[in-house]
Every structure is written in structure tokens, then in C-alpha cells.
């Protein structure tokens, strides 16, 4: 069983507790740390080694990148939890995914489940060859000829995350090109010929 550490950074006490409560319902998550401000949290990241950070950003935070560069903290999955519904297809530069607290609770749970699944998939590299649900979705969209940017917009994830998914798909299947992935998708009935021709 996976053993993840999560961090929640959110000013509002009530909303912060809400996120913590959802995270606590996952068996995969062992430790949860809460912060009101990113400044309090950054110096502690190398110590906590989180796998997942949920962050409600209130201003531009280029300093996240410059602060963390060169520090041995491993790969963190950053989730943007700002509630701006009207521009949710814009995943900020620093985030892997946007997840609004205004979404239905069941939808939030599903997304977090998928994140846990993907994080788990990356820990046993090489042996784990089954594609995750998300990777299958990405693969289908690739076969239908969509670009990384289009896939990102459709799935509400960042282009950076699409690239990560593509790398994992290629590693798991041993297929590098779009044409090759398309053949795989058809042989496995993930897409039909008609969908590709259109």
C-alpha cells in the first residue's frame, strides 16, 4: 500500500479543514500537514518530502520554482485549489492540475483518487505496465490527433502533465510515435477507425 505525504496550503481555516478531511479519507495518505501561507511551508518541504501539495495561490509565485530548484525534495504533484471557477481551464504554470473546491465533492474525490493512482504507478517504474484510466484517456485523445495543448484543455490538466502522461505511456507500451500509439489504440479497441478518420 502506498504511503503518501500531503500538504495543504490554504488561508481559510474552514476550507483548509475541509481539504484535510477529504484527504484523511484516503488510506494511501499517511501524513497531512496544514499551512495558511506558502512562506511558512516552503522551508519545511525538504523535510516533509510531500508527494502531493494542495495550494490555494493568492498571488504570483515564481519564487516557488526558484526556491525549490536545486533542493533535494523529489517529485511533488502540485494541485491548484483556487476557487476561480470561471477560468478553470487555465492551470497555472507551477501546478500539475487545477481542482476547484466548488466542484461537487464526489468529483473532487474521483480526481484525487486518480492522482493517487498515478503517483502509485510512478513509484514502481518498469514493472508496472498497465495504463491508468487517465493515461488511457490521454492515449485515446492522442490517437484522435489532438495536440498536447488540446488534450490539456479537454482534461483540465496542464500541458506539462500531458507530457508526463505521454512519457509514461511510451515507457509502459514501448511505443514512441503517434502513428504507433494509434495502431495500439485500434488493436485494443480504445478507438474506432471512424474516429480517427474524422
Amino acid at each position, binding site marked *: 500500500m502506498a504511503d503518501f505525504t500531503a500538504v495543504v496550503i490554504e488561508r481559510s481555516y474552514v476550507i483548509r479543514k475541509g481539504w484535510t478531511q477529504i484527504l484523511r479519507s484516503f488510506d494511501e495518505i499517511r501524513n497531512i500537514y496544514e499551512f495558511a501561507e506558502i512562506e511558512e511551508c516552503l522551508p519545511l518541504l525538504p523535510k516533509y518530502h510531500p508527494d502531493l501539495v494542495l495550494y490555494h495561490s493568492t498571488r504570483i509565485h515564481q519564487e516557488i520554482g526558484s526556491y525549490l530548484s536545486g533542493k533535494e525534495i523529489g517529485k511533488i504533484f502540485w494541485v491548484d485549489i483556487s476557487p476561480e471557477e470561471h477560468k478553470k481551464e487555465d492551470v497555472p504554470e507551477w501546478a500539475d492540475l487545477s481542482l476547484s473546491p466548488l466542484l461537487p465533492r464526489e468529483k473532487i474525490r474521483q480526481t484525487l483518487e486518480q492522482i493517487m493512482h498515478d503517483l502509485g504507478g510512478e513509484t514502481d517504474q518498469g514493472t508496472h505496465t498497465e495504463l491508468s484510466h487517465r493515461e488511457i484517456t490521454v492515449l485515446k485523445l492522442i490517437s484522435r490527433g489532438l495536440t498536447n495543448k488540446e488534450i490539456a484543455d479537454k482534461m483540465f490538466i496542464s500541458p506539462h502533465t500531458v507530457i508526463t502522461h505521454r512519457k509514461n505511456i511510451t515507457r509502459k507500451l514501448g511505443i514512441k510515435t503517434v*502513428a504507433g500509439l494509434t495502431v*495500439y489504440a485500434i*488493436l485494443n479497441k480504445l478507438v474506432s477507425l471512424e474516429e480517427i478518420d474524422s
Partner: protein
Amino acid sequence: MITGKTKMADLIHLNHKLLPVIGRFGISLGFGDSTVNEICREKGIETAFFLEVVNAFHDPDYYPQENLRQFSLQLIVDYLRNTHRFYLDKKIPEIEEMIEAMIRDCYPGKEHIDLIRVFFGNYREELIAHIEREEKTVFPYALMVEEAFLKGSLTGEQLEQIRNRSMKEYQEEHNDIEEKLYDLKNIIIKYLPQPQDVSGCTHILYELFYLEQDINDHSRIEDKVLAPKVEQMEKVLLEQYPLSDG
């Protein structure tokens, strides 16, 4: 490093993948204790060029000799052109035929299997476009640079060409032409339904492994022998004629 004094037999023991390479120079087995120098002289092969090619194949970190006048770029270009012909006229039709046979004998009645035919057809188009670009643009450019370098003079037009599109740009755009072959192998090995006749599939896999490796080595001659030589010549030419259009 392989030198003129290396025995040809030792060269093959060192790296048996050099066998098809020496074959392309018209050298066949049975060389006894002869050295590279001796065999090249006997066969009328430019030794410096032969050494450059086998060293580039053998050592991934090999960087060509500084001496630009050792042998003509024309030799490299001819060698590369010959290899292109070998792919287009011999290997590709052979594999196409094998695919037809595989579809017919191993997967009769299986829907979707002609996807493989379409896939390889696309690959063929890609390879043709890649080769065409090299033969129509890159090689003539390389020979033009060498001509100017050897003459020690440069027309305004040639200088313009060097400034507009250097060898470095060609090299950056030089894409991995063997990726689709890698994919095709894995599709056949891992993802096609179980064939009725396994041997038909085995044969085509050998061919794909061979072609992928060969194209890979071919690209290394382009990247490691041809391109660096042209770049060095460009550098000398641009130093000699820094502002002649000013």
C-alpha cells in the same frame, strides 16, 4: 581506436556489428592476418575514410580527426547515397512483401491487421522525405562548402548560403527516422493477436531489427562524420571572410 595497423580480423572480433559495414566497402571475409592498411590498398579504398567510418560505428564518443583534407566529402556523400538506395530499392520492398505475406499467412481473416500495412506505408513516405531532403539539400550544401574550402575562395552567394542555413541547423532538424521501426517491432512482438504461423512473424522481426540498427548507424555517419567536417569548414570560411559583404 581502430588504426591502419589493426588487423582486419581483430576489428571483427572487437565488434562483430562492423561486418555489414565492411561488406558495404566490398570487403569480404577470409582476410587472414592482413591489416586495415593492406586490405584497403588492395581494394582501392581510401584508408582514412574507412577508418573514420568504422571508428564512428564502433565508438559512440568518437569525434573525427581534425585534418579536413584527409579525404573528400564526396566519398562520404557517395557512401551515404549508396546506403539510401539500399534502403529504398532493396530493404523497404522486401519488408513490404513480408508484411503482405504475414497478413495473408499469419492472420487470415483478422480485421484491422492491414493497419500494419498502412503504418509501414506511412513509414516509407517518411523515410523517402527524409532521404530526399538530404540528397537534394544537405549533401549539395556540404559539397558546396567543401569546394569553397578547398579553393580557398568564396562567392558572395556561397557566403550568403552559409550564413542563411548552416550545417548546425540541418543537424538540429535531423530527426530520428528509426522510431517507427522500433514501434512496429513492439506492436508485432507484444500487441498483435497470436499469429497462426509464428515463423512468418519471426522473419520479419529479424529484418526490422536489422534495418533499425543499420539506419541508426547510417545516421551516426551523418551526424558524426559528415556534419562535424562541414561545420569545421564553415568555421574556417567564415573566419577568412568575416565581413566581405559589408
